[in-house]
């Protein structure tokens, strides 16, 4: 089975050195690091306009005075998506379905953030912040 492009790239990174550093960490954390890194790319690959999303994310983190952290954001989003049937290695369409379900769930539960007045679901805002944290490597 062919892996999605983003996962392959992440694997390359891991093989090229990150994996060696991870070996020094406790097993479970290494898994989280690995999963989050992969998920970050997978999540960003969902976006048809990652630069536009990154602008929204930047605005949100600046207003909230936060430092966007790829690992932490990806981990948080991944954890929520699991509750909607997604699992690491799932096909992109499954991720998209889980993401849509989660965003709807956020709105249904009033879990929104304010970005220049726009009321955005927390998960969407975190997805945008993830894009902002990875801005340098985003396609234009």
């Amino acid at each position, binding site marked *: 089975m062919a892996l999605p492009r983003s996962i392959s790239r992440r694997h390359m990174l891991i093989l090229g050195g990150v994996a060696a550093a991870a070996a020094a960490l406790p097993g479970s954390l290494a898994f989280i690091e690995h999963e989050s890194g992969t998920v970050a790319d997978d999540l960003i690959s*969902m*976006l*048809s*306009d990652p*630069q*536009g*999303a990154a*602008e*929204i994310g930047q*605005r949100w983190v600046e207003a909230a005075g936060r430092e966007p952290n790829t690992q932490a954001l990806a981990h948080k989003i991944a954890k929520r998506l699991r509750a909607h049937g997604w699992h690491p290695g799932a096909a992109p369409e499954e991720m*998209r379905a889980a*993401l*849509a379900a989660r*965003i*709807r769930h*956020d*709105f*249904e539960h*009033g879990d*929104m953030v*304010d*970005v*220049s*007045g*726009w*009321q*955005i*679901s927390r998960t*969407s805002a975190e*997805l*945008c912040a993830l894009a902002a944290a990875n801005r340098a490597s985003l396609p234009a």
Partner: protein
Amino acid sequence: MFIDGRKVPEGTVIETDIAIIGAGAAGITIARALKGSDASVALIESGGLDFEPDTQELYNGESIGVPYTLDTSRLRYFGGSTNHWGGWCRPFEPIDFEQRDWVPYSGWPITRADLDPYYIRANDVAHVGPFAYNDADAWSDGGKNKPLDLPGGEVVTRFFEYSPPLRFGVTYREEIAKAPNVKTYLHSNVMEIVPTEDASSVESLRVGTLSGRRFEIRPKLVILAAGGIENARMLLLSNSVQKEGLGNGRGLVGRFFMEHPHIDRPVEILMTKPDLVAPYYKTYTKLNGTNIRAVFMFSDDYLRKNRRLGTVMTWYQVKEIRTDKDVEEKDPDPARAMEPGLLQLIHSTTADAADGPLLGMRYGSGCATEQSPNPDSRVTLSSAKDALGLNQTKLDWRLSSADRANLRLNMEALARAFGAWGNGSVRILFQDRDKWDEAEGWGNHHMGTTRMAADPRKGVVDANCKVHGISNLYVAGSSVFTTSTTVNPTLTIVALALRLADHVQQHFVKGV
């Protein structure tokens, strides 16, 4: 028959069965309903058949609360403020009449069911179309128009129907003129409602003209229908026997003044699929011969569960958001510059992918919102006098920070609904503040100053609109509203006027 009050001989005493003070929506409706009955009716109107500046000036007054213009928000001639109303019609909701434990002073002594038959007749009186205010099928245009399917059940689509807008004073002029039992006194200002010595009933009306003529009308029954502010002023001015004003033994006359604060652009809405938006949302739309418009309102369940006041929202199409826009064209407002990215985000997650350069549409909005009844929001008498030598109105309109917070929370509910729907996003422009001391706009809806309550300690009129403690004095108009509700008042004013006319027919006219 029309009679010019300026030509009535000085000191004349006119006997009549029923006197109606004011020929606006309420007064004309009651006069028409009593047309042909056994009772003689005197319809007493301050103005003539057309606008006259010196008569209009009698509406000047002071505003000391939320800034408000008293003179331009009503008209003082035959037909009253219907000479410039907009014709927006919608009945009140059943919940509006209920005692809501989260709304102090709420709870009318009547229910929506009590008004139902009169609403249907009111629709006819105001020349509105079929009574289909909540019936999306009636406006589907052969299945083409569908209300937006917003999930969550908090935000609902409802319909306004429009009166042409009917100029009551023009359309019903001839009918009133020809009614054998109705005499209309024009250019005739009621200056005082004079009660008996014990103030238990009305004895006479002191009438004056701007030309200086004075005469008296002696009715068996009086219906005060001078408009939502003037009704209170008239009772307060009627103080020769009851010093604090007629019917004001408990100091309630003039209190609880309510309006509908209007906000321009409380939110902006982005939608990925403009073709889902039926034309009736965007502007006045003629369907089956009736002009209608769809609005957003908030469901009873939502209002109850969240302990909220109501809001009604209109919206309109503003601008397409596209990917093929030049960079120079980009909006300098940073929140606007986010729009393409935001729509792309929605297309990437909850909505279908965009299949061309059109990402979606931006919509603007407007809203009117309910204010909670507040005894300190009130009409009193100013020390300044009008041309008849009567104290002018002093209006102290108050809005509360809680009313403001309520509106903001309703906008958040709208944002939740659009987000959960997955095809849109809401930007809230209306900010929460700890004061609400300036209204952007209002509806020219003057409510609450002679409020209805079964208990005389809580209101000025009873469930039949009779002033508590005075056997033959009734009030018609939005001053009797116990709560402001969310929508425009006139259809309800007319429905209540028809109900009052029925009551008077049954309990008074039959005995004449």
